[in-house]
């Protein structure tokens, strides 16, 4: 059981900086997810916590112990790798037992722990097999088993589900979540998949280009994205981002086609500034009455069953927007849809800095 403190963690490879002063405290027993596009530094951050990479500046502590100079094996952590990293020449049992043997545990104790983990993960029947004989899902379980037997104070997951097919991924996602809840071990999970991030994490860190874009619960990230990047990254289909200008009195956002949108609260300080307006596809309502603010011309329609997605452009300008309508809605290409927009669901970002404006 342990808290993890990251204090101004920096990492660079030669002249190339990958992490810029990351600060974060991960509480005991918490499940946190680091999410971001590929190359954002999320795996590097995880690997610095694991001790597989040395940090260039800052301090990492696990359970009140500064671990900067400790070897991975001394940090009381366990890690699950993307490609599982099972030792191909060892049986499942030996894979799980290897680390314990090196630590010099008693044979009985090793056997007890391995069997217990195998029961938890329902892989008892495979203990004698070699990893080659297992399916992707089974290998994944073995990899988790190897982590569990160490009884570490921290679990680290590096995109553990990305090699599985879609269905298995959903299933394993739930299992990991349940397992973490049951064991109550502090866990850090890295993924590029925002759905995985939202479903698994108590809290999320959105990382982009080595900087933290936002820290928060899934709901905070969805409802109040701190930056334009987070807004576009969280949610599927992703948020519509439109260029606009704040009117002189700060009450409206004006689009290039002279359409405009009243803001929930005026932003006089931003008068005449360029902003980016964010509208979630699910927050755009079709409203055939006179309350409609704007309208779009439909280019393409996708029926997903539970939802209907309509892609179209605002009349008079070429900004493309996506609508997510509940259930099956019969729309045709070329239809003009009048839209109603709830001002409370409008996100405004400074175009220059990408920061949220309120």
């Amino acid at each position, binding site marked *: 059981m342990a808290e993890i403190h990251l204090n101004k963690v920096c990492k660079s490879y030669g002249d190339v900086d990958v992490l810029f002063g990351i600060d974060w405290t991960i509480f005991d027993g918490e499940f946190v997810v680091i999410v971001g596009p590929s190359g954002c530094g999320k795996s590097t951050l995880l*690997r610095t916590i694991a001790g597989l990479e040395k940090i260039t500046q800052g301090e990492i502590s696990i359970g009140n112990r500064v671990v900067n100079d400790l070897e991975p094996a001394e940090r009381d952590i*366990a*890690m699950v*790798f*993307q490609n599982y*990293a099972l*030792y191909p*020449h060892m049986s499942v049992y030996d894979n799980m037992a*290897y680390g314990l043997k090196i630590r010099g545990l008693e044979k009985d104790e090793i056997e007890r722990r391995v069997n217990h983990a195998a029961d938890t993960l329902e892989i008892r029947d495979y203990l004698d097999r070699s990893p080659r004989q297992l399916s992707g899902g089974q290998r994944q379980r073995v990899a988790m088993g190897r982590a569990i037997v160490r009884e570490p104070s921290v679990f680290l997951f590096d995109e553990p589900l990305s090699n599985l097919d879609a269905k298995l991924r959903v299933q394993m996602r739930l299992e990991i979540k349940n397992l973490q809840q049951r064991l109550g071990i502090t866990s850090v999970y890295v993924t590029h998949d925002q759905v995985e991030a939202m479903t698994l994490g108590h809290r999320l860190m959105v990382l982009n280009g080595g900087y933290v874009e936002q820290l928060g619960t899934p709901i905070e990230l969805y409802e109040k994205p701190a930056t334009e990047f987070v807004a576009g990254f969280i949610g599927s289909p992703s948020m519509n981002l439109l260029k606009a200008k704040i009117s002189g009195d700060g009450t409206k956002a004006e689009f290039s086609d002279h359409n405009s949108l009243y803001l929930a609260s005026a932003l006089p300080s931003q008068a005449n500034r360029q902003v980016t307006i964010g509208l979630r596809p699910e927050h755009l309502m079709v409203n055939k009455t006179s309350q409609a603010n704007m309208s779009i011309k439909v280019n393409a329609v996708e029926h997903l069953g539970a939802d209907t997605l309509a892609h179209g452009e605002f009349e008079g300008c070429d900004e493309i927007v996506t609508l997510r309508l509940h259930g099956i809605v019969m729309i045709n290409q070329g239809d003009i849809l009048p839209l109603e927009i709830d001002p409370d669901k409008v996100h405004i970002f400074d175009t220059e800095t990408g920061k949220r404006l309120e």
Partner: protein
Amino acid sequence: MVENRPYVTFMAHAVLIFGVIIVALPIWVTFVAATHDELRMTQIPLPLLPGGHFFENLNEVLFEGVGSRGSPVGMMLLNSLIMALLIAVGKISISLLSAFAIVYFRFPFRMGFFWLIFITLMLPVEVRILPTFAVVADLGLLDSYMGLSLPLIASATATFLFRQVFLGVPDELLEAARIDGAGPMRFFWDILLPITRTNIAALFVILFIYGWNQYLWPLLITTDQSMYTVVMAIKQLLEAAEETPQWHLIMMTTLLAMAPPIAVVVGMQKLFVKGLTETEK
């Protein structure tokens, strides 16, 4: 095969069988010669079918040798075996270690060491025989197993092969091992060696043949008959044949000189082909 043309297929078999006959002819004739007695081997034309003196000849060659001054071939076979094993095991051991260092460690002069090893590719023993001989003589290694094998042990080829193999090993295995608490040598023994064992075996096959077939080097540094290898002895037998042609015994010795490497190649064909294509590409 794309289309079914019995005539073409028949042709293909015919050509291959012809090829096999050409390839096998010298070996067959040698085998036949080793199964006849001295008298039959002086009568023209020589036989093309085996005779009944195989074991007799084998016995004579193995334990008494050829001619009055010849040493027993059995001993030479043993010398050849020891030399081949020393060369193969030696090359593999030092190459595994140096490739491990070069691939898995960052340390000063790493690339310098790499190039130093690389240069040995360009120095086959044939082009540096005299000075190498001098070195071995100065070290007092003439007529010894060390002298036979050590100068042939450094090998850029094997180092390159293992370097290539190691580079193909997923990084995560090392990371997993480090998290499991394994140090460098533990990782080397427990993980790296077991997962590269087929590459090692394949290379062993190639190097065993290489070692067994060494000729010029043993010829130069052995003067003591008890250190002769069977391959180099062939030459002396051929010279002796000018005066007293004991072809049945000479050919029996020749047969013994090539039997072990042939057995290795044919018996471990898969490993052999793997080793051959891997070391050269």
